[in-house]
């Protein structure tokens, strides 16, 4: 596969993306010889709740990380509200996979939430009462105020995920990108998280989540993006989350019966 071709697509976009929270064009990422994400275009609609779905190893998280600049793509452009990513850090809140950090790190829940205020606090500004109030309010939204002083290593998986979400809320962003927010959390946490995400959407924010539970896609999200290294399909759940597209993305990995049950076309 000639990856060099992809990097030759460096012409500036002619389309108007100013109202688009996140647009990815020609994204190619590779960890070794084989690309994990190949020449993917993705356009996230303003005010949507979008799920990125696809089989294991399909490049879901990789696409998200490359869109955020967390990993360096081989090729591709990212525009955030029509501007380069570099100037838009303040409008994005990213929730990494819970398992990607060391929870034995010596810090408290409240300190993690305060990290969400980094852009406001900068290098040296002091943490004031107003900052603490913001952080506590965010903890309250995820039902974790009682744990503010707790060392993060003492939290359950669901509680850790809530703390990560509280940190994202503290950022006061317009675009929320979450990497598998429901992975390994209890049912109560899943409910709490989806309630918070829906309230964000009601406030006109945009939410994008890498998601792996196909059974909840149509309950939680209104837009869906299917990927298997290459883009399979994107659009409203009602018209895109179909048996045909699922088959194309998952290949033989999902039984036909399963797909029929999940896909909206079969409803």
């Amino acid at each position: 596969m000639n990856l060099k071709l992809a990097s030759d697509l460096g012409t500036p976009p002619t389309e108007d993306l100013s109202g688009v929270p996140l647009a990815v064009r020609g994204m190619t990422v590779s960890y070794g010889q084989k690309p994990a994400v190949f020449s993917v275009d993705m356009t996230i609609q303003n005010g949507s709740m979008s799920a990125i779905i696809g089989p294991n190893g399909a490049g879901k998280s990789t696409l998200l990380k490359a869109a955020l600049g967390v990993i360096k793509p081989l090729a591709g452009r990212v525009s955030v509200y029509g501007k380069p990513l570099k100037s838009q850090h303040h409008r994005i809140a990213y929730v990494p996979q819970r398992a990607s950090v060391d929870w034995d790190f010596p810090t408290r829940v409240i300190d993690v939430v305060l990290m969400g205020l980094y852009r406001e606090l900068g290098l040296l500004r002091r943490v004031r009462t107003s900052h603490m109030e913001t952080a506590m309010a965010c903890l309250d939204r995820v039902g974790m105020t009682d744990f503010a002083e707790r060392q993060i290593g003492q939290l359950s998986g669901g509680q850790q995920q809530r703390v990560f979400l509280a940190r994202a809320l503290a950022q006061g962003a317009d675009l929320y990108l979450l990497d598998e927010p429901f992975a390994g959390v209890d049912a109560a946490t899943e409910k709490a998280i989806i309630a918070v995400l829906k309230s964000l959407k009601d406030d006109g924010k945009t939410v994008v989540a890498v998601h792996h539970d196909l059974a909840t896609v149509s309950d939680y999200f209104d837009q869906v993006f299917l990927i298997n290294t290459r883009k399979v399909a994107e659009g409203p759940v009602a018209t895109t989350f179909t048996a045909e597209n699922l088959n194309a993305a998952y290949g033989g990995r999902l039984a036909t019966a399963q797909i029929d049950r999940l896909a909206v076309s079969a409803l």
Partner: protein
Amino acid sequence: MMGEEFVSLSLTPLLIGVFAAIACALPGNFLLLRRQALIGDAISHVVLPGIVVAFLVTGYVSAWPMMLGAAAASLLAVGLIELIKRLGRIEPGAAMGVTFTAMFAGGVLLLEQTDTSAVHLDVEHALYGNLESLIWLDATGWRSVLDPQALAGVPDELPRIFLTLLAVIAFMRLFWRPLKIATFDTGFAQSVGARPTAMGLALVVVAAVAAVAAFDAVGSIIVIAMFICPPAAARLMTNRLERQITWSVVFATVSAVLGYVLAGYGPLWLGADHAVSAAGMIATVSGIILAMAALCAPQRMRSGAPAN
């Protein structure tokens, strides 16, 4: 022990020991949490070839070219470690181990091949340093501390390590937030523009500067011990990074002072004739502190892995 003799013979080595210990322990806290503790070990070993090459180039023993040579060698080592990690596809610890042993060995060979015997440059010196020799001959008692003329005679190592310590503190204070965020959560740090890659590199450079300055004064044994032992013991004392830093400074100071005193007087108390190496004793004390922390510190039983 607290009189005239103390000021001229023990005050400067003590201060140099304490400053060197703290300068290494401070960045050591972050290196430890980033699972890069071995990098201090690597840097302190590769300093040797750097110093030898600097000597060969300049032809004389002088602190600044040697420190430059050592700093250059540290950066080369950091680059090599990255390269070996990527090209060899091996884990970071192994890459560090390969790099620093190879470079240290190269330094030893260079030393043997070249005529450095006339000057005070040998492997032993590189390992143990020469803390006891850093005396302040111009001092005549505590009043000398305020006497500019006497102060001009303090060993060069003292102002050098003191300035290095100030630089380390300034770096840690200024970049505290991005350092902490980048150490805890690299992906998030990148997404808020806290520049984790630059922070990681800056931390290694600061550690290298501290190691080189400390090496110059006290040898690599102390450097290696201080990068790891005080921060590791401090981690067992508390679950908050801010307090961990404070504890590591306390442990570094205690190791330096207690180690120096025990080396100088311990053997005499036990009836032996000669004092032992201060550097060796300081490193030993820091190891004992870590052992004690591992046995009785409050956070030693914490659950390391995420509780599910």
